[in-house]
């Protein structure tokens, strides 16, 4: 969209005027004048059409598109002010705006114990039964506190995309309280995810090979030259980089385990440490390459392979676009990812600006995760209550942060919705919207809590702003039309809004 067409348009108009003036006395007889006029109109129309076509992404972002982008890069639901903030941008501009907002550090203060070193095994062995019990209890308590801290960060962050990515990586390079009892390790990994959220996948992968939480969770710290433990090596290939059974063999797993041997966690510093004595220094044959590989070479050899780019492009596609994969889009993203030596930023951007992402057919094609359900609604209503309440709700809906069901993470999709989880999701939406209904009944603001007032203000903005139609309200709240038959005319504005939130369509993003 250079300024040239506009200049030439002005020139064209000017010339036309001059000619018209010049030919005025005998117009209608001057053939050349008529043909020039026809040509100029044609040029104008052609140029205008071209301009429209090339400009269409540059015109204001419709509510539905802004909602879609924010829902998929955030927590499934966004406030009207967040949606309106993108209104003047093109699609690409909106995507870049979100990417520019990415953070590498949290905005909230983590608990003060996240830097504590784990008591050494030698020390723990001397403890009494009661002391050990107290230790376990503290760890359980800290796990809950860490969940609450993260939920608070998701609420407070100006960049939901950052936390969305951290959650993505938590679900990819899974670790869990079920294998990592020392909670500072879980925090440490979460911090690494934020620092590398959209950075280099190569760096992130290397960081995971030497991550204390990971070394505990998949037994890497027990992997020694004499008796290799292949737990981490297997998942490194199966879940983290290649995809199950794709391009590697059981033998590659064993060889990778040998190459990765020797990494452990130093209890004195709580950092990963390489113990050369425990490392198998022999020759390995891994993914078709030979050498006396160690951990860095394992990462390099894996990333020399074609699979990881493809696999990660597929994984990102599923997470951010969903539905049936559009192969050319996946392939283009994989190619861009590989060409930029595994820049996550490039991978994500390529997908977010792709026509597949913006296709209205993808609206509402994903089921919100429990984190989406809870954080989305809590952000929407300017939640003022404790984060403990929110975390408890996520847990009962089936997503316990820092405690995914297994190394594969939460399977998501249709599995989010069971009779148990849907009941607790519905319960949450009912609880969150109950105060609105009450507020509406008592004439707005009758409820004397900050949360209810904020909600009421938001609700008023949503349904009573003179320029906002019911259709716009619907476009802000829902990704797809409601399943229930909601006749706006028969409901009060407040009831209509509440009904939108309680519709099964609200489960979708």
């Amino acid at each position, binding site marked *: 969209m250079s300024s040239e067409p506009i200049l030439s348009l002005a020139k064209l108009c000017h010339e036309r005027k001059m000619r018209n003036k010049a030919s005025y006395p005998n117009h209608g007889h001057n053939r050349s004048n008529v043909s020039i006029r026809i040509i100029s109109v044609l040029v104008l129309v052609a140029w205008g059409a071209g301009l429209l076509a090339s400009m269409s992404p540059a015109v204001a972002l419709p509510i539905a598109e802004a909602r879609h982008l924010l829902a998929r890069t955030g927590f499934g639901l966004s406030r009207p002010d967040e949606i309106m903030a993108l209104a003047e941008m093109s699609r690409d501009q909106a995507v870049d705006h979100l990417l520019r907002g990415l953070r590498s550090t949290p905005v909230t203060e983590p608990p003060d114990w996240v830097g504590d070193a784990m008591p050494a095994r030698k020390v723990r062995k001397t403890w009494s039964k009661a002391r050990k019990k107290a230790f376990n209890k503290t760890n359980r308590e800290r796990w809950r506190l860490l969940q609450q801290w993260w939920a608070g960060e998701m609420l407070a962050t100006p960049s939901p995309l950052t936390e969305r990515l951290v959650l993505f990586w938590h679900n990819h390079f899974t670790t869990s309280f079920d294998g990592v009892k020392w909670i500072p390790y879980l925090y440490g990994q979460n911090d690494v995810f934020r620092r590398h959220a959209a950075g280099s996948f190569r760096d992130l992968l290397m960081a995971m090979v030497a991550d204390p939480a990971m070394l505990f969770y998949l037994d890497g710290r027990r992997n020694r030259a004499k008796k290799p*433990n292949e737990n981490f090596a297997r998942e490194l290939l*199966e879940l983290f980089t290649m995809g199950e059974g794709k391009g590697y063999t059981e033998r590659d797993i064993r060889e990778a385990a040998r190459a990765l041997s020797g990494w452990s966690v130093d209890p004195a510093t709580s950092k990963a440490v390489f113990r050369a004595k425990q490392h198998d220094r022999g020759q390995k044959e891994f993914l078709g390459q030979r050498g006396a590989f160690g951990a860095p070479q394992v990462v390099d050899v894996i990333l020399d392979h074609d699979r990881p780019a493809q696999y990660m492009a597929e994984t990102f596609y599923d997470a951010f676009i969903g539905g049936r994969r559009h192969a050319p889009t996946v392939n283009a993203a994989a190619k861009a990812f590989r060409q930029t030596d595994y820049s996550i930023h490039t991978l994500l951007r390529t997908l977010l600006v792709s026509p597949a992402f913006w296709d209205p057919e993808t609206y509402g094609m994903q089921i919100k995760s429990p984190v989406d359900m809870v954080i989305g609604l809590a952000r929407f209503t300017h939640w003022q209550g404790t984060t403990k309440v929110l975390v408890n709700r996520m847990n009962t809906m089936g997503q316990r942060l820092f405690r995914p069901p297994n*190394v594969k993470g939460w399977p998501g999709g*249709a*599995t989010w919705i069971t009779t148990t989880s*849907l009941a607790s999701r519905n319960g949450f939406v009912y609880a969150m919207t109950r105060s609105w209904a009450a507020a509406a009944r008592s004439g707005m603001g009758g409820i004397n809590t900050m949360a209810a007032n904020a909600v009421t203000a938001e609700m008023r903005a949503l349904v009573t702003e003179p320029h906002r139609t019911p259709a716009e309200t619907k476009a802000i709240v829902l990704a797809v039309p409601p*399943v229930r038959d909601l006749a706006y005319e028969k409901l009060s504005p407040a009831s209509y809004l509440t009904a939108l939130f309680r519709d099964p369509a609200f489960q*979708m993003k």
Partner: protein
Amino acid sequence: MQLTRRGILKTAMAAPLVFVPQVAVGATWRRHLVLVELNGGNDGLNTVVPYRDPLYRQMRSKLALPTDQVLSLDERLGLHPALERLMPLWIDRQMAIALGVGYPQPNLSHFRSIDIWETATMTETSGEDGWLVRLFKESRPPATLPAEGLVLGRNDPGPLAGENARVIALKKLTSLRKRQRKNLKPAAGSTNPLLDHVVVVQNRMDLAERWLVEKNLQDVSLAGTFPPHDFGRQMETAARFIAGGSAVPVIKCALGGFDTHAGQMGRHRRLLTQLAEGLSSFARAMKGVGMWDDVLVMTYAEFGRRPRENASSGTDHGTAAPQLILGGRVRGGFYGEQPPLDRLEGQNLVYRLDFRAIYATVARRWWGLDGKFLGPRTLPLIT
């Protein structure tokens, strides 16, 4: 057919004590299959122990169970001592142990292998329906039943996963609530399968709740108490459903934590204790209401574990493992063969009994269905 009649008779006798049947259900669907998934891959060699085999001790210097602690089943094999509560069922010949259960070209991935077990499909086609869903395609449990399957543990329908399977997952009986709501209609010509899924689950929930609330399952009285752990509660809920006459053909429970790569000894003992407590309480409750003959309990896991222990006093992913099958109509004893420790393949046991033979037995001898896809072989497991 005589068996079926006996089934009807038993149910009819038991029924007036607890409830008045409201819907007539075909006799075969009065038979319940209770699946117990040992999630993570149970260590078969320390469950049914080849305690006389010197190789066993040689391969497991830290994890081998002392001979005098093993509960002897015969001169070669014995149970882990934590399974003591199951011994009365073994002695009464109401517990069968299928040995060396597995499948050809074993896959050592948790996820792929459990898919194989739960779909009974070897070929790599993701999204295959669960084997019970495939089986029920042949003859659908009647629509008058509240559901075809009930998932109590782990929230994963496993063998009941499939497009049209009517499955309900429950955490607690108290989560059932009395509500009246009209069924939702999915949008006409919808192209959003996940939204359709939400609508279907919502409808199923409303329907099942209406149905089950009328049953007052919490008030069903059961003989004895259940252990207070999660698995115990699952077995108690299963018992209430069956005793309360809810006639859900399949109930899936799960006990997790079997992926014992490190420090196996204590954890495995705890898990097997929980397993034995849950199963024995369930058997007692079923006998108490005269319905032990109407249930078949079967354990399964994605794989067993490697014979040789690792350096972390744990065991890595393995292959073939034993499976427990319990019930009033079970013909107790061993099936299959214990895979020898001196004939390993890639450090792992070689399976001796294809798990599909057990499934085929359930299909044909338990429900009278065909289940051709499960292969021709059946076992004389069920009287």
